[in-house]
């Protein structure tokens, strides 16, 4: 390591403070703790260290080396090169979101644009500046609903088609709420219709949570469903895949109260699971109960347009003990990536990418349905993901597929034991028709090896 002090510099400094050697600086530390044996290997050069790290990294397979049919909440999409080059500009690249309006107009405007895009995409009136990921956004929606009814409604109804990890996150958030019942996801049927949830909705229900497309990839219109839940006075939240909204009816048109989602498909790399982006949009009537940050557009005293944080004073800064959520920050850089991605693609571009996903996934499903031992069992309209019943356990199949440089689909039996041998297959625009054909034939081969 380069240390910018020569021996004469050091002895001059030591002399100044009246010490003989650097060791004297440590004489207040008890002797037996002074120079512990750290059991570390010999020091190596930067060049060697870099090579060591590279060798370790090369042991991994990434989606650059393999065809990826894994989804289940995080998807391998193509990310235009401009996304990275814009978000790594010095003006934007910061670990923290600078909120001071005097010095942060660029960042605040970017967040405002992000909010506007998410509100438009979801068909909702207001979006916050984002949460950490789809799971925390879902939990914050439950927090909003719980406090909206001031704890008087103590039942959450969660769909079996809501991402299992989001359900776990909601349960973690609400540990210790002894009177709270979280129900709905233990429906014994393999892939139940969400209309079954309506039987559980009563006057104690604070929120009903569904997903669109759901965890099994299925899509449906929730308009009537929402009406029926609203008859009981409960709120409806829907977790979305924003990519799918490029071609599907926005959930705002169903009349839902809250839309959350995982923003990762919008130009954010898989990166071993994060950082991702939590989308959160709602109706204007809940804006005061919205967790996180909200940027508003205003004018200064000379009438010039400007951006500021708005509606934050009450709970997070002043009545902290009464705040319903502790989240005061957002995913600044990642939200910016989504903003850049959406701006680059535009409305039609996003629709095109969504259609590519839809068409390729449907092509794959058709190919599988022609085979004897495979069956697409998520028997309803789907977006880019479907449930494939295989002749062998998915774990076994996926291990074998590695030899074909294929990352197979998600093993549903991990979260749903009743879905034995069921693979959740995700098909994105990142694979070609030839890739899909190769996947289908490889899967057939490993099952009949």
């Amino acid at each position, binding site marked *: 390591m380069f240390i910018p002090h020569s021996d004469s510099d050091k002895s001059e400094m030591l002399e100044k403070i009246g010490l003989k050697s650097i060791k004297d600086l440590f004489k207040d530390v008890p002797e037996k703790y002074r120079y512990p044996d750290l059991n570390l290997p010999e020091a190596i050069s930067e060049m060697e260290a870099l090579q060591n790290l590279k060798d370790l990294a090369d042991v991994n397979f990434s989606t650059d080396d393999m065809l990826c049919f894994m989804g289940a909440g995080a998807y391998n999409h193509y990310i235009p090169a401009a996304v990275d080059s814009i978000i790594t500009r010095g003006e934007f690249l910061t670990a923290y979101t600078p909120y001071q309006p005097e010095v942060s107009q660029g960042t605040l405007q970017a967040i405002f644009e992000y909010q506007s895009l998410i509100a438009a995409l979801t068909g909702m009136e207001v979006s916050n500046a984002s949460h950490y990921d789809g799971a925390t956004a879902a939990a914050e929606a439950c927090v909003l609903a719980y406090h909206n009814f*001031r704890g008087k409604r103590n039942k959450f109804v969660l769909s079996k088609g809501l991402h299992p990890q989001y359900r776990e996150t909601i349960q973690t958030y609400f540990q210790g709420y002894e009177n709270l019942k979280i129900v709905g996801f233990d429906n014994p049927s393999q892939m139940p219709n969400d209309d079954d949830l309506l039987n559980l909705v009563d006057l104690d229900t604070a929120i009903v949570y569904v997903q669109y497309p759901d965890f099994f990839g299925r899509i449906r219109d929730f308009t009537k469903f929402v009406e029926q839940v609203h008859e009981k006075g409960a709120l409806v939240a829907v977790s979305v895949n924003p990519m799918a909204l490029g071609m599907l009816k926005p959930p705002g048109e169903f009349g839902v109260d809250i839309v959350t989602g995982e923003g990762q498909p919008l130009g954010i790399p898989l990166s071993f699971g994060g950082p991702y982006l939590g989308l959160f949009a709602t109706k204007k009537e809940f804006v*005061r109960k919205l967790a996180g940050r909200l940027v508003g557009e205003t004018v200064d005293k000379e009438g010039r347009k400007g951006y500021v944080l708005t509606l934050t*004073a*009450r*709970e997070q800064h*002043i*009545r902290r003990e*009464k705040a319903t959520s502790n989240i005061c920050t957002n995913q600044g850089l990642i939200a910016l990536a989504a903003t850049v991605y959406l701006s680059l693609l535009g409305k039609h571009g996003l629709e095109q990418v969504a259609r590519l996903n839809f068409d390729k996934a449907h092509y794959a499903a058709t190919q599988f349905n022609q085979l004897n031992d495979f069956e697409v069992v998520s028997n309803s309209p789907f977006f880019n993901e479907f449930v494939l019943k295989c002749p062998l356990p998915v774990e076994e199949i996926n291990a074998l597929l590695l030899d074909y440089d294929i990352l197979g689909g998600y093993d549903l039996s991990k979260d749903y034991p009743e879905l034995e041998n069921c693979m959740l297959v995700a098909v994105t625009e990142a694979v070609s028709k030839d890739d899909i054909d190769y996947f289908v034939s490889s899967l057939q081969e490993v099952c009949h090896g």
Partner: protein
Amino acid sequence: MKNPQDLKYAKTDEWVKVEGNTATIGVSDYAQSQLSDIVYLEFLVEPDDEIKKGASIVTLESVKAAADVSSPVSGRVVALNDSLSDEFESINTDPFGKAWMVKVELSDPSEMDGLMSADEYSAFCDDREH
């Protein structure tokens, strides 16, 4: 603005007006002037809620601060002034009139005895000014 003689006052700057067994609750002129311009109001109770003396009934947010309004009396909530949700400016302009907040059916009228008269409250406010 003078503190009306027909009201009783709490140390937490709410006023109470009793008619029969019903208590009407609002915040005083002193309270609104300390808060300055009110920008938001939220009711924390609903009709038929049973509340105890000291319970938070309303949250006020001004350009300067946020504060809870607590009930100086116990009882059952019988009415909310819904018009305030849209016209919270009247809290600043007419705190003792149009800006009443909650009506409560008293469960323990003797609680009124612990409240201040207009003169006592005026003196209490003066003390805090100096």
